[in-house]
């Protein structure tokens, strides 16, 4: 009994220490976003919202935020659509060499983003194609397509086949079956892969940095803010992004994934 209590005590101490480690930087980030002064380091001078006003007044930052939203949703939608179609094709038809082709689709997952970005950069450079949000989006589809394909493909069970067959017997065309029968059945995993892609694209730096020029995404704009050193403005935009992500996560948790968790 004593031993059990001792090990529980140790467990509590360990967990508290690690949770402290995990939360320390975020707590400091958020706290000093309210700093009434020019430096986001102790001492904490007092509570002020001036840095939040500053970021919402910053045109470049807000433009970057919008760019990030556009690139994230558009590239995720494309990745999801391509991934879903491929998953449907591989799950429902026997194609020659399909193991190899599935391997090819998953392959970008095993390569560093830096290498994917540099590869695209060398080609674009040689062809003389200018860098823009389009090129960033193309890169983001490359990194998210394997993810979407893997998630949707793994959720395509054989039990769905009979329902699809029934729909076909009742006269639905292939595309109709896919859109009106298969897609709704797989909606949870399609949405999961979509939102996962959105968060990856939204947060991605190196591809966005190397493949954009004048119009940049939010992580790249924050990066250029960092060049001016420690600045409570960076704390403020960082806190806003953090709270927005948490809010999105909470909404997803409460709506989309609710059913799955209740046993």
């Amino acid at each position, binding site marked *: 009994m004593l031993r059990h209590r001792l090990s529980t005590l140790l467990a509590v101490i360990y967990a508290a220490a690690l949770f402290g480690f995990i939360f320390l*930087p975020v707590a400091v980030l958020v706290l000093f976003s309210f700093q009434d002064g020019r430096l*986001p380091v*102790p001492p904490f001078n007092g509570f002020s919202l001036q840095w939040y006003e500053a970021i919402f007044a910053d045109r470049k930052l807000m433009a970057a935020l919008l760019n990030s939203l556009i690139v994230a949703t558009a590239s995720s939608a494309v990745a999801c659509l391509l991934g879903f*179609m491929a998953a449907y094709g591989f799950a429902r038809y026997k194609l020659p060499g399909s193991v190899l082709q599935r391997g090819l689709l998953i392959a970008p997952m095993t390569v*560093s983003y830096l290498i994917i970005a*540099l590869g695209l950069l060398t080609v674009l450079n040689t062809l003389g194609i200018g860098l823009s949000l389009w090129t960033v989006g193309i890169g983001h589809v490359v990194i998210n397509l394997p993810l979407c394909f893997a998630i949707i493909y793994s959720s395509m069970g054989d039990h769905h086949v009979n329902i699809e067959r029934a729909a076909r017997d009742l006269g639905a065309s292939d595309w109709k079956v896919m859109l009106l029968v298969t897609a709704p059945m797989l909606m949870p995993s399609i949405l999961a892969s979509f939102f996962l892609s959105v968060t990856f694209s939204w947060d991605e730096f*190196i591809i966005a940095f190397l493949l954009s020029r004048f119009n940049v995404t939010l992580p790249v704009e924050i990066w250029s803010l960092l060049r001016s050193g420690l600045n409570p403005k960076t704390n403020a935009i960082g806190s806003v*992004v*953090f709270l927005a992500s948490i809010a999105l996560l909470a909404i997803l948790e409460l709506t989309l994934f609710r059913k799955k968790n209740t046993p």
Partner: protein
Amino acid sequence: MTTLSLENADRRKAWGFVAPALVWTVAFFVVPFLFMAAMSLWSRQGREIVRAWNLDNYLRFFGENALLKGLSNSLEITLTVTVLSVLLAYPLAWIIAERVPKRFQRTALILAILPFWTSYVVRSYSWLLVLTKNGVINQALLGIGIISEPLEIASTRTATVIGFVHFFVMLLTLTIYANLVQLSPNYRRAAADLGANGLQTFWHVILPLTLPGIMTGAFLTFVLCIGDYITPQILGGNNELVLPQIIMLQIGRRADLPMASALSIVLMLAVTLAYALCARWLKIDRV
């Protein structure tokens, strides 16, 4: 005859479904990658890229100390981070899986990975706030009187390692936890029936059963860590450059895409080697 034509029609339809994804991957991943590999054999002369086809870039890499040091820095930091993260994350995952009541486990896990949702660039920046000369850690330690001079942690390898470990402890807690809760309680019961105590059960039963999960997480850590530019650039500064920093220098300041390509190939070989070393424990094909 009819069946054959039906099969052909079916096959054509199937290609229609899979082709867009395959074409995208080939056009924007395979071709650029091969092009980059080819470019690593060219060289830059002045502002021009010359299609010379030789191994000069690779020979320069193995001949130049500064470049070779980048690789060894990368490997040292990545290995340190991987080992530290596994050692720190395993007990936490264990505590959440075994000691936290079932209905609170999900909450505990979500809390453990909450800072994931800060932006990646901002996460490194917030560690800079903590570790910098007049930052939280130094002011706290000075305040208590443990140190009399502020510690120089920012812009060192230690800062890079702390920033990385923070990220990967969260990631590994998640993967190891997923592994631990999958284990059937029957294993533990059987071990107890056969007379094993808690430690023996852990060492001989639980640990070997979770090893594939640990290795998968460790491999993921290795791949993400060795290819990362942000954390070493923000936290490590320019004192000890890692390979991705050197690659970015070639792209940016020197505009030497052939050399950057060659260094990327080296980076990829390092990852491939790591994969070969832990392949026997990995269960990536199950994903």
